[in-house]
């Protein structure tokens, strides 16, 4: 039995409605309890800001394309390297760090749970191998279904049950957590070097539209009773004028679940552009947030960009090729048979670029114009918009109008004309930030019941204590202190153990991987369906028996069972 008592913590715990109360937190064997014995180890939080462990609900940290981002970028590996020290392994990389680099830096920022944004089922084993080497965070994997042949066939047949059965079998086989759609239909079109330009354009041969894929998958997701909703990267990412696609997509979404959203729209900044060319691109954040504010069934994340050099990586292969044709830098592409695509290119977001400045402003506008912080979560689509180490700066910008104005003064002159950021007075408070960086994520991912995102009795003792005194710090004026404070916790506690102290990792990690297992009725199971098996054996290049990820790849797997089809 191990016990820990955190005393004098200034707790903000939005899920329980606690806002800045000074309290003690008792921990036994990794969970939060009523009280502990007087033999418990003690930490004095000295009235510092204490939050549930940070949760990133959309980040790219593990798997085939992340590793290829490292593989093709020795220049970035040189840019961030640390030596072996105490319990810490060597790390390399700044915007695509090695697994240990990701894990240590997230931990130093108080993050204890991460959702990998895109895992191709065929290459799931790779993602799980890297999860094991990311020891300080519990991991979940979004599983890609955007170009899944079996799913598209079932969608064409308008067969929601069959769609659900395919998804359920696949998630179980690859130990995935949730459904991810990246440019649905578009990644299959990219198999022929093409893309789709509207959610009503059919995919060649399969004769289904993105709208049909999205609508059917939303219903299949609810039929499976998955803890998370469909997680969508909309069509037409990064194209001027794409806000109409985004709005049309949002209009497809019914409100089907009382406990959480029905659709999670990711990195919406990249999907909120007006205009028709790069010359007249402008912000449509107001239109997007008007839709969001009227649709409690949708949660989005910002997809904030920050000015820096970084790497874009996504399953959206055609988008990456278009971007490559603009940037003329190196380009990698990796299509995955019968499932999805992917692309990787490095980019530099520059204040000298009007387009980049507008993108930067749009991300902030989305957050500031969304009334409920539960509906707009803080992310950069790491590393696409910026590496996650920039989150503290994003927090600073959201909390301080002065910081935004000072930044705006350094931007391309067109920013003010084509966005409304300068007119937004809103300054977020500590509670808003706690929602946008952990509580909102826990709710959106459906992991509150797993003890994540709050500090109630029975919760997992994942806690971040920041060197911030909310009673004496004015974030609007002293935003630099806010940024600094969120960069390095005083203590990060993971499952009841202090794992990081003042940015230094002090123990070996032992993360868990959450995955979902939906029980599917015998007569619907695709592994009993001779036609499904025949097509699998004929068109995949691995045997169906060799496809599922063995339990050995999840040394600390946590299966979330669902009562589906009820």
């Amino acid at each position, binding site marked *: 039995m191990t016990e820990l008592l955190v005393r004098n913590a200034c707790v903000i715990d939005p899920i329980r409605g606690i806002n800045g109360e000074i309290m003690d937190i008792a921990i036994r064997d990794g969970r939060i309890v009523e009280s502990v014995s007087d033999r418990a180890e003690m930490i004095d939080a000295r009235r510092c800001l204490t939050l549930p462990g940070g949760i990133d609900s959309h980040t790219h940290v*593990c798997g*085939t394309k992340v*590793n*290829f981002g*490292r*593989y*093709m*970028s*020795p220049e970035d*590996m040189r840019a961030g*390297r*640390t*030596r*072996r020290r105490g319990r810490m*392994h*060597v*790390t*390399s*990389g700044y915007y695509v*760090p*090695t*697994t*240990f680099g990701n894990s240590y830096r997230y931990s130093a920022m108080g993050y204890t749970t991460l959702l990998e944004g895109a895992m191709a089922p*065929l*290459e799931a*084993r*790779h993602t799980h*191998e*890297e999860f094991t*080497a990311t020891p300080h965070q519990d991991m979940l994997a979004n599983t890609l279904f955007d170009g899944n*042949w079996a799913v598209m066939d079932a969608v064409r047949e308008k067969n929601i049950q069959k769609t659900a059965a395919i998804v359920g079998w696949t998630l179980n086989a690859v130990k995935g957590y949730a459904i991810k759609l990246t440019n649905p239909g578009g990644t299959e079109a*990219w*198999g*022929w*070097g093409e893309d789709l330009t509207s959610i009503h354009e059919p995919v060649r*041969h399969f004769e289904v539209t993105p709208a049909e894929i999205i609508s059917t998958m939303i219903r299949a997701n609810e039929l499976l009773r998955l803890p998370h909703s469909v997680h969508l990267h909309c069509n037409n990412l990064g194209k001027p004028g794409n806000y109409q696609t985004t709005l049309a997509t949002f209009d497809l979404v019914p409100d089907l679940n009382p406990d959480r959203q029905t659709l999670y729209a990711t990195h919406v900044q990249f999907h909120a552009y007006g205009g028709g060319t790069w010359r007249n691109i402008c912000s449509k954040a107001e239109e997007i947030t008007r839709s969001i504010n009227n649709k409690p069934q949708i949660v989005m994340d910002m997809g904030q960009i920050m000015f820096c050099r970084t790497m874009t990586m996504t399953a959206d292969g055609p988008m990456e*090729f278009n971007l*490559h*044709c603009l940037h003329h830098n*190196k*380009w*990698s*592409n*990796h*299509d*995955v*048979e*019968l499932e999805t695509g992917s692309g*990787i*290119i490095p980019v530099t977001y520059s204040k000298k670029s009007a387009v980049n400045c507008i993108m930067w402003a749009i991300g902030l506008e989305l957050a500031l114009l969304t009334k409920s912080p539960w509906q707009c979560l803080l992310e950069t689509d790491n590393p696409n918009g910026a590496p996650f180490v920039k989150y503290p700066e994003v927090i600073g910008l959201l909390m301080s109008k002065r910081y935004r104005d000072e930044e705006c003064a350094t931007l391309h002159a067109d920013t003010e004309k084509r966005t409304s950021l300068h007119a937004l007075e809103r300054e977020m408070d500590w509670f808003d930030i706690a929602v946008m960086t952990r509580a909102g994520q826990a709710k959106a991912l459906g992991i509150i019941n797993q003890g994540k995102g709050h500090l109630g009795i029975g919760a997992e003792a994942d806690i971040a204590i920041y060197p911030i005194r909310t009673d004496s710090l004015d974030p609007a004026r002293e935003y630099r202190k806010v940024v600094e404070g969120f960069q390095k916790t005083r203590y990060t506690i993971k499952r009841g153990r202090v794992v990081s102290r003042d940015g230094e990792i002090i123990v070996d990690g032992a993360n868990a991987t959450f995955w979902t297992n939906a029980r599917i009725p015998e007569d619907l199971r695709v592994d009993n369906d001779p036609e499904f098996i025949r097509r699998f054996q*004929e*068109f*995949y*290049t*691995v*045997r169906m*028996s*060799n496809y599922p990820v*063995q339990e050995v790849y999840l040394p600390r797997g946590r299966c979330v069972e669902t009562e589906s089809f009820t």
Partner: protein
Amino acid sequence: MIVNDVVCPFCGCLCDDLELEVKGDRVVRVQNGCSLAEATFMNDTRLPAPIRRTTTGWKEIPYDEAIKETADILKDADRPLLYGWSSTHGEAQSVGVHIAELMGAVIDNTSTVCHGPSILAIQEVGHPGCTLGQVKNRADVVIYWGCNPVEAHPRHMSRYTTYATGFFVPDAQRDRTVIVVDTRRNNSSDIADEFVQIEPGGDYAVLSALRAIVRGKDSVIPKKVAGIEKEQLIRVAEICTKAKFGAIFFGLGLTMSRGKYKNVRNAIELTDELNRHTKFVISPMRGHGNVYGSNEVFTWMTGYPFAVDFARGIAFYNPGETTAVDILRRGECDAALIVASDPGANFPRIAAAHLAKIPTVVIDPHVNATTSLSRIHIPCTAAGIDAAGTAYRMDGVPIRLKKVIERGYPDDAEILKKIYDRLNGSKGP
């Protein structure tokens, strides 16, 4: 006993549809496999026990002693080299990286003498590729450049390209055009629809010519480029631009001939150019069964796919300096641990000679040319035969190798962990 859907660990194809008949600790029949697979499973003669060199020959020693001596050799070394890794599973490779990190050693894999130049090219211009099933189901044009799949990857054509029935290519032989580019005729060129015979060393020029033609600049092309008629170049370029889905596979004929990584870069840039007309992909034909896995494991752990030097405490990478051949050639390293590979057979003579000079330990299931240069050889399981573990196919698809028999050998990952523990005092990585 019959075991189905077995993965052959030999080459980068990692065919996973083999059927083996097993009797006791022996594989007695291999179905579906190529001749290389059959030899891998059936001619699996192992070194029976660890051996140490004596003044007159070899002496068998217990595993514990061999492990202790190996740890001592590494501990005494100023500049140890850990090399190989490409024929074992990722679990062993991962322990290898941890040992290198702990010792401040150099760790390198067989890419260094194989597709290392491809990696350098990819680091300059990227890699437009895909999984092999994408080629199987869609490609109507397949190009083999500087490789001989019939000999080196015997089932590549039947599983993934020329003869494979694909969803959008129901009649593979009729629907696919196969182009072979090489300096000489070989078994693969014999079945090509179009054979492009380049003068040795002419790959770069031919790739440049094709790029120019694809960009509509054929007027600048001379009558002949590296022995190839302009007409043929224009024909090939047209086949490519008119393809619905084209795939280039290349081998050491491109990476290890004059121009090296610049050849590969040019081939990638041709692929890039072709994507402005149609869909095109390019992929290296990786040799060892899990050489790509060693690149993957090294990359997520250190940031670099090969040639990683931990001497400065951080991971440092500079191919040409931190590559195994160069470290040996300069006579720089003073101890070597060779795992799951045979540099004695593949390295330049001067590099191999240095291995013989310094204390070299081999961890490998089989006696090979490196054994005769070594001081100690520790036999172990062979990944995919009597040990399970992860391997990455040439296209990046991770596959679990199966354990099909038990032969009583320790797993190389276990041996390496014991070495690590000795070096680290007590705790594991």
